[in-house]
């Protein structure tokens, strides 16, 4: 039962109930969709990028608590970062949700609430769907699938 509490932490439940940065940011110039064909979940991530800097990110779509909270927290975590920083952040986040571990001396901040996901291998894709979509958006893709 503690694993379940670890997965559904209050921060995750809060971001599921009241997702931040819903919709498209003003002046968005990057956009991509993500699909999880396994469950039918769908997320649209859009961003306003200026030079190398991600100025704002928003998301839309329907998904489970993990995917909704992950998208919501991602939009907050990547704002103001460079493309290289976002890429590194995704790698660190993926390591966290698959192994529960972080790189030494690396802080993921609020994203660390997703550490419990690694106990639920079937839910890893829920947590990473929005990140795949963000990466596709930044790289100029239009659509990604978790399969």
């Amino acid at each position: 039962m503690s694993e379940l509490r670890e997965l559904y932490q209050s921060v995750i439940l809060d971001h599921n109930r009241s997702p931040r940065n819903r919709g498209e940011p003003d002046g968005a110039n990057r956009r991509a969709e993500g699909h999880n064909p396994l469950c039918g979940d769908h997320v649209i991530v859009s961003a306003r990028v200026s030079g190398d800097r991600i100025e704002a990110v928003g998301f839309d779509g329907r998904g489970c608590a993990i995917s909704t909270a992950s998208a919501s927290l991602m939009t907050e975590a990547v704002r103001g970062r460079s493309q290289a920083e976002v890429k590194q952040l995704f790698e660190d986040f993926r390591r966290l949700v698959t192994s529960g571990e972080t790189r030494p001396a690396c802080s993921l901040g609020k994203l660390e609430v997703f550490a419990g996901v690694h106990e639920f291998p079937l839910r890893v894709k829920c947590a990473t769907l929005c990140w795949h979509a963000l990466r596709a958006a930044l790289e100029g893709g239009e659509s990604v699938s978790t399969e």
Partner: protein
Amino acid sequence: MSFDAERIRRDFPVLQQSVHGKPLAFLDTAASAQKPQCVIDAVSEMYSRDYANVHRGVYELSLRATRALDDARERIARFLGAADPREIVFVRNATEAINLVARSLGDSRFGPGDEIVLSEMEHHSNIVPWQMLCERRGCVLRVAPIDDRGALRLDAFEALLSPRTRLVALSHVSNVLGTVNPIDRIVALCRARGALLCVDGAQAAPHLPVDVQSLGCDFYALSGHKLYGPSGIGVLWARAELLESMPPFLGGGGMIASVHFEKTTYAGIPARFEAGTPDIAGAVGLGAAVAYVERIGMDAVARHEHALGEYAAQALANVPGLRVFGTAPGKAAVYSFELEGVHPHDVGTILDAEGVAVRAGHHCAQPLMERFGVPAMVRASLALYNTRADVDALVRGLARVREVFA
């Protein structure tokens, strides 16, 4: 003999375990059924005692394996009420059976403008093969609607039938809604217009007595793994004269009469549709599964599942914020639902922590999800080995979901 689910439960070794420290409540039989010990033994004995390739082997083991395969075919034929064991074609699953019909019958007989009618409640396996046929042959797909309870709208279905309708593809029982379609009435409508009826029986054969001759359909497809048999074996039934009129599906060994580079002639039925070495142990396992459910009696199975289904329906109706999809009268014991404010995947994960195995997702029926305006549903499906304790565990688990998402 009275139906004793507790005793039946003991026949299934997989059910004798705890998951996450809780007794396993397995409520996902609509996806695949668990296997009784006698099926596991039949497969194991085939490999440890009687295995060799079938047909034409002149030695003892090949003879035994051939006989076991023939026996399984005969038993399955009797189980389905087929007139002749040659009407039982072994395939991998219901999906392959439907693809066989679409390829063999569809490609050879249907052309541009011919119409194929199916329903909104179909599984992807009874949609996509027909869409692919339409692309190959220029046929037109027509989709009969269902009502809000999940019952086929017979008036609208009848209105869709036309002189161009060549085939109707319909599930006997819906894998999501549990709706039991009135095959007898559908048959009458099809006959009146000269259309063939292909029934997807994957969700029916494990739960209702099925007699293909009294149903009156032209094709009946089923999967062994949903009928307490091994995965990888399935059945296509069709009347002998219909099968005999159809060209082969796959080419290869076992399906020929003679092969020459100038000309090859094909074997009779069912061999014509069984190219390559079949799943011998799988077929034998399915034969054992059929023998198992026959010993219990399909009428008794249907009665047990109906009574337990009523209990489940009542219990779920008392769960706050829960909406069941599929309330057609006389439905099978399949309960798909949503819990207000909680995504089906989260429901599934929390139920799993409580030892309750359900399925969450689109259940290979995305058009049906669209029909009800949801991306996914949670599905609990009952079988002969389920008891009220399983349903109670589900209801307790749903209360736990509410606590987590309070």
